[in-house]
Structures are given as C-alpha cells and as structure tokens.
C-alpha cells in the first residue's frame, strides 16, 4: 500500500492551525493522538441521527444505537483478533481496565503471600492498582528491572517467576521509553509457572498489529484516544473462561439478568462487566478509529513512523548535549531525552512558543525517571501524520532553547 502523508494530514482538521504564530507541530502523540474526520463524523453522526439508550428500547433509534454499539464491539474484536465478542468489554480506558482486573480477578485469585510481578517500566496505571490489591490482601509486588538501554532484564525473569506468582503485568510498548517488549516470550514463561499475564497495550495498538490469540495473553487493555479514537473509552480483553469465572466489578443496570431483593442473577458476557449506560458514542468513535487504522494498514503507518524515529534519533545524536532516555534495540514512536543545562519543562515551554508540542515530565512512569536519575524528560512521539519537516522543526526549536540558555 502506498503511503501519502499529505493525504493523511488532510484527514486531521486540528493539524491545520497556528499556535503562537507558528504552524502547529504536534509531537505529543503518546499522550493522546489527534482524531481523523472519520472519527469526528462517526461521533457527531451518532448524536445527530441515532442517539438512544442501548439494549433496552424497542423503538427504532434504540435499535440503531444498539446495532452500532454492538457493531463497534465486533470491529474491536477483529482488530485484536479475539475469539469472540464475549471477550471484549468496553471500559473508560486502559486505567479502568487494569483496575477492573485487579479488583475482580485479583480480588478472587490473589491471596496473602502470593506474588504479582510488574516491570520497572510500567505506567503508574499498571503499578498502583496492583499495589493497592497487594496491600489489601497481603500479597507481594515484585519488579522485573530494566537495563541502561531501557530494555527488560530478561535474564532475571525466570528467577522472579515462582509458583507464588499469580499475575505478570507488562507494557507492550513503553510510553516513557518507546521500548517494545518481548511479550510473547514473557507470556510463555509466565504460563509455565501457572501465572496469568496482563499486557498493557495503551500505546501499542496504534503502532503495531495485535493478535491476542497468537500472543496467548490472558488480559489485554487499551485506550481509544491513543489510536486516533475518542477519550473516555477503551477495552478490556480477557479470555472467555477467565471472564466467566470472575465476579462482577460494578453493580447496576445492564449487568443483570434478574434482580430481586434476595438475589441477583448476573447477565451473560460481556454485559456482566458493563454496568450502567455505556459510552455509546465513544464506542462508535473507537470503532471508526479501528476501521481507519485497518484501512490504512497499521504496518504501513508504523514503517513511516519508524523512519521518522530513526531520522530523529540521528539528528539527536548529531545535535550535541542531548541524552536519549531509552535506546532499546526494538523501539517505536517515542524519542525521550534530556538536554544539558536545560530542564525539560523549560524545553517544553520554549518549544511550545515555536509551535512544537511535546511532553515534559515523568510520563506517569516515575520509577523509570528514578532508574535513569532524572526528574523528568522531554518526549517527542510520532504518529502517522507527522513528517520529516516536523522533525526538522523540532530540532530547530531545540536549537533556540540551547541558545537561550547558552
């Protein structure tokens, strides 16, 4: 498939504006991506034509809304290659998905003395829910360390996996470092000791093809807003047998079959985990984003982004005074760095005035910052609509910052 970045850019209305008198260069895609017109239209079209509550009305609009919402579930099943839509639960995002697993599956399966293993490069959302659970039940949280390049110390994995390990949480593509982790290998080794594996795919889905059956992961979580979809919607994938055995997370409407004051019968999958009126428009926008990704072929988009990342990495090495944080052999989308003598937040402010939007901070991965001994990093992250010229604009703006502090 041929790739035409100018055509892609035309699909994203927000890109065509100036900030502080400069053409916007949006390089904060790991925080959230921009949305193509197809997604914006799907959301507004739903509200303009079909809006109704789902699963309960007998009228035409409710039937249309239900069909669109359930159609979205099927689209996302296909995107992840899950075996069944019974394995796809809509949630608020990756964070809620992990909290759901920790509360429901963790609450039922993790006991005092058991172990949860996460990696040193996890996002706070894949650390704190496990910490809370471990504290509550008296389990132990263990950490698989990273090395100086920001790769997992895989040689330590087997020693950390014990018969007490109940769950391994691992990020597929790190938002702080860009590292792509060998999740299939981790899953195989974790399964060998009987542990379940949750893969945090919040960053991954926009940048690589996902096949949960081939990975054989037990849980996979992601957020729509990082893959060209709306905020406030995401999915939790779990193997059907796990979902079947898990107690509900929240109680309310939609998740029940029968309620009396004596006893409630829960609804079948996946509705058992979707209490209350869901984010219907969000799910529809999410599916539009998935369709958009599939139609353009995520592998083709990823090749383009990889070329930008290589070019940016080259320019960073030639620039002088930049330290790259995260230099893993397998890396995508993220260029995380510090500049000698200039704090990341000053970089963020100066770049913004040059029209270049990046992120400065700890990227919700404070342990990664601690590992590299920095309070924060500056992070540029690339998406399908970014260009080589924008990489040049980034480095021109970095030169302004360097001169200002010289």
């Amino acid at each position, binding site marked *: 498939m041929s790739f035409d970045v100018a055509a892609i850019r035309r699909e994203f209305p927000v890109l065509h504006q100036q900030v*502080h*008198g400069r053409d916007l260069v949006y390089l904060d895609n790991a925080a959230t991506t921009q949305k193509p017109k197809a997604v914006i239209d799907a959301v507004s079209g739903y509200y303009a034509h079909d809006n109704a509550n789902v699963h309960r009305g007998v009228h035409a609009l409710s039937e249309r809304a239900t069909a669109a919402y359930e159609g979205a579930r099927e689209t996302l099943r296909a995107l992840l290659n899950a075996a069944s839509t019974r394995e796809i639960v809509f949630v608020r995002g990756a964070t809620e998905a992990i909290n759901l697993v920790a509360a429901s599956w963790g609450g039922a399966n993790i006991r005092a003395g058991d172990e949860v293993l996460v990696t040193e490069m996890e996002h706070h959302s894949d650390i704190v829910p496990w910490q809370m659970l471990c504290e509550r039940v008296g389990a132990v949280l263990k950490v698989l360390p990273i090395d100086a390049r920001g790769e997992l110390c895989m040689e330590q994995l087997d020693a950390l996996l014990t018969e007490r390990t109940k769950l391994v949480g691992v990020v597929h593509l790190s938002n702080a470092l860009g590292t792509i982790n060998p999740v299939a290998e981790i899953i195989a080794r974790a399964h060998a000791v009987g542990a379940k594996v949750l893969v945090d795919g919040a960053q991954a889905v926009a940048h690589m093809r996902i096949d949960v059956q081939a990975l054989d992961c037990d849980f996979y979580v992601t957020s729509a807003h990082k893959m060209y979809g709306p905020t406030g919607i995401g999915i939790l994938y779990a193997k059907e047998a796990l979902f079947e055995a898990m107690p509900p997370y929240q109680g309310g409407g939609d998740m029940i079959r029968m309620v009396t004051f004596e006893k409630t019968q829960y609804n079948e999958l996946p509705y058992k985990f979707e209490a209350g009126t869901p984010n219907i428009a969000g799910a529809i926008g999410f599916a539009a984003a998935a369709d958009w990704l599939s139609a353009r072929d995520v592998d083709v988009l990823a090749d383009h982004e990889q070329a930008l990342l290589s070019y940016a990495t080259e320019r960073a090495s030639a620039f002088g005074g930049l330290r790259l944080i995260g230099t893993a052999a397998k890396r995508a989308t993220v260029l995380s760095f510090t500049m000698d*003598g*200039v*704090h*990341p*937040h*000053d970089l963020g*402010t*100066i770049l913004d*005035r040059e029209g270049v939007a990046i992120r*400065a*901070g*700890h990227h919700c991965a*404070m342990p990664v*910052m601690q590992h590299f001994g920095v*309070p*924060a990093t500056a992070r540029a992250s690339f998406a399908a609509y970014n260009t080589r010229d924008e990489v040049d604009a980034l480095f021109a703006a970095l030169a*302004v910052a360097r001169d*200002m*502090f010289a």
Partner: protein
Amino acid sequence: MFDLRDLYQQVIVDHNKSPRNFGKLEHYNHEADGYNPLCGDKLHIYLDLDEQGRIADVSFEGEGCAISVASASLMTEAMKGRSMQEMQAMFEAFQQMVTADIAEAPDDDTLGKLAVLAGVREFPSRIKCATLCWHTLKAATEDSGKVVKTE
C-alpha cells in the same frame, strides 16, 4: 507578541546557572520541603530566624526548572534581613504580580529585582514553578512540617 525572552530574561538564566544561597545553612532553626508534582520540582528551604523574628539567613537546595531555581535564588537574596511582615508583603506582591493581567505593571517598589519574574503570568502552566519557593518559605516560618505541594 509576547517574546520568550520576556520569560527567560538574562537575570533568570544567570540565577539558574549559578543560584545564590544554594546549599544547606551551617546554622538554621526552621526548614520545609516543597514539591511540584506536575514537574517533579523539589525544593528544601533552610531558614535562620533571629530573636526578633527577622530572617538572619536563608538558603535552598533542590532541583527544578529555570523558573523555579531562579525564583528561589532571587527570593533568598531578597529575604535576608527582612521581618515577617515584610516577607508577607513581598509574598503577596509577588503572587499578585504573577497572576495579574499582562497590562498591569508589577509593584516595583515592593518587589525590586523580583519583578523580572513578571513574564511568568503569560505562561499559566509555569506560575506554580515561580511560587513554589514562596509557599515553601512560608511553611518554614510556620514550621508546619508538611510538604508543600503546588497542587
């Protein structure tokens, strides 16, 4: 248009590069921690109050962006020998300056050199960087023992 140099004036760049009153005081009787969770800026203030309650000496340690380091450096410089009332007045004038409308001229008489930080008001996300040291100093005078957070 607002120029970046209005924020990063030479004085600020200089104070960031070689902060004044940086490091632990030999003798101090008050201290406090400040933390800006958004930036990860960390600040520790050492304060020596004399018998009259005047600031005999004050210093800081920590890491942060240029705005927060320069602000702490300038603040410690300006605070030596001040009474609590004077400190309070300057704190209020400073807060007024960094949150005021761009058209409003800073109160140079009260603020003196600190007026170089007036540019911060054009950068809403950076105001907390400039005020962290002040909140921390105030906490030190009150010895609350709590970590001051900007959020």
